[in-house]
């Protein structure tokens, strides 16, 4: 049965057409039922006057894996640490993690200072506020990260704005709650993806990981002071020398992850020289829509995995995408 393009169907067809042109064979890792859901979720505003056949399960299974090529998927979670449960009353989880693939794929994570009374509020507010800022700065981000030649100094300006904004959020909280902004202090880790470059920003400890060409590596400084329980935070005492930012080329970039130091205890080497293969598997799982918030939560909450660690809060935010296999014509041009 033929019919006029159904709502949302055009995008599927276009992908299928390109796939056929590229002679890509079926790579099925999305089941047909999920495929139907995806079709249903494609926006209805895609203009097309093509007449296309009703998709069958067979065609969907061959087409839908290609839908995820280049499409970022996100997963995040934060779990209270066992050490926080030993105090009376127990401390809340002071980590906040957010991964988002809306207008721009990003991962933001903040770890509230253990000794700060209400740092969980600070961490949550900073994560939400930085995402809001990034949405507001979208046109600048597009210029800085999506264009082939970046205007000099723009990314640096954005990084400074993010840190200044995060500081301002804590100052506002301090005023609102009538206490010092030190009480809200937290670390901040940010990944912002762009078609040409990905921007990272790191205030304090935790780990940033990028997966490129199928390999994961830590990005940025370790972020600890000389001693194991020293780090720096977004707060009134933060100075320029205590935080770092940078950009990495986005070609063949397939995953970005941010994690608090509690999660990093088992997921990266303490000197940042190695990344656990688990991160790569989680990123591939996320890209295949097999790892979401629940899976991240289960990982972070599984006591067996974290035996012998400090019992700190653990959080992880990641974004991942599938890339076409290397033997596909045109490979590398768009990814």
């Amino acid at each position, binding site marked *: 049965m033929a019919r006029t393009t159904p709502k949302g169907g055009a995008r599927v067809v276009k992908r299928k057409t390109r796939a056929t042109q590229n002679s890509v064979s079926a790579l099925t890792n999305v089941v047909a039922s999920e495929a139907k859901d995806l079709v249903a979720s494609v926006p209805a505003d895609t203009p097309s006057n093509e007449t296309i056949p009703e998709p069958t399960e067979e065609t969907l299974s061959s087409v839908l894996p290609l839908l995820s090529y280049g499409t970022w998927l996100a997963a995040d979670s934060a779990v209270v640490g066992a050490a926080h449960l030993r105090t009376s009353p127990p401390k809340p989880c002071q980590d906040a993690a957010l991964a988002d693939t809306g207008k721009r794929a990003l991962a933001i994570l903040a770890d509230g200072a*253990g000794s700060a009374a209400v740092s969980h509020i600070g961490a949550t507010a900073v994560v939400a506020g930085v995402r809001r800022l990034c949405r507001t700065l979208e046109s600048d981000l597009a210029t800085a990260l999506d264009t082939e030649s970046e205007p000099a100094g723009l990314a640096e300006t954005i990084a400074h704005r993010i840190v200044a904004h995060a500081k301002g959020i804590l100052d506002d909280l301090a005023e609102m709650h009538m206490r010092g902004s030190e009480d809200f202090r937290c670390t901040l880790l940010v990944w912002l993806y762009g078609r040409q470059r990905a921007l990272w920003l790191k205030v304090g400890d935790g780990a940033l990981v990028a997966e490129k060409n199928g390999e994961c590596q830590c990005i940025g400084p370790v972020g600890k002071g000389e001693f194991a329980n*020293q*780090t720096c935070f977004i707060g009134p005492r933060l100075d320029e020398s205590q935080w770092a930012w940078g950009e990495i080329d986005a070609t063949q970039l397939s995953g970005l992850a941010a994690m608090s130091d509690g999660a990093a205890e088992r997921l990266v080497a303490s000197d940042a020289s190695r990344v656990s293969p688990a991160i790569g598997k989680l990123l591939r799982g996320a890209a295949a829509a*097999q790892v979401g918030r*629940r899976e991240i939560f289960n990982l972070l909450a599984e006591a067996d995995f974290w035996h012998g660690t400090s019992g700190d809060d653990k959080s992880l935010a990641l974004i991942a995408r599938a890339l076409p296999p290397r033997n596909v014509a045109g490979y590398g041009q768009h990814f």
Partner: protein
Amino acid sequence: MNGFDLALLKNDLIENPTARCACALVLDASSSMDGAPINELNAGVAQFINELRGDDFASYAVEVGIFTFGNDVREAVPFTPAYQIRDCAPLRAIGGTPMGEAVELAIERLAQRKADYKKAGVSYYQPWLVLMSDGAPTDDWQAAAKRLRKLAEERKVTVLAVGIGEGAALEILGQFSTRPAKLLPGMKFREFFQWLSQSMERVSQSTPGTGVSLASTDSWECI
């Protein structure tokens, strides 16, 4: 979401070495400690090590080094994780009180241990140096006191100076630290070392950004 087996990740996780916390005990073994004081001190040290060994985390994290000053200055126990300390020979009280030389030795060994940590990629906490004496030094102690105090001011080391009994030169001991020396009355070694082991456990399990709140010293300190 389906099809992702978390159990498969377990073997992928990284076993980072436990962050270490070095604790140097610089102990008076001069002749004035002979008899009950040295016996109680020995019992207190043994209890300290046993209590650390009883804590899953601290037994690996806390490394104890014991330095004595009496007839000579000795490194009785090089820095060793508590769980590995098997036999700690009882200290014998004999000779003078070369406190300055012992402190210099402990500082050198702490610096060396920190260098070892860095070389091995092991993170570490601010080390502690506990100085205990029942009298006054008999050597040139001023340079050692100045050096140790400077390290404490720079927050490179936590120094705790403890005078044993009423005869202790608390004013001199206080010059080794940024805080006044504390008086341990009535040979409350057990109470003191119990407090010390609890404090080391807390330090060794502190996380970045966490201020370490130590247990009250009421159980042993004479105010």
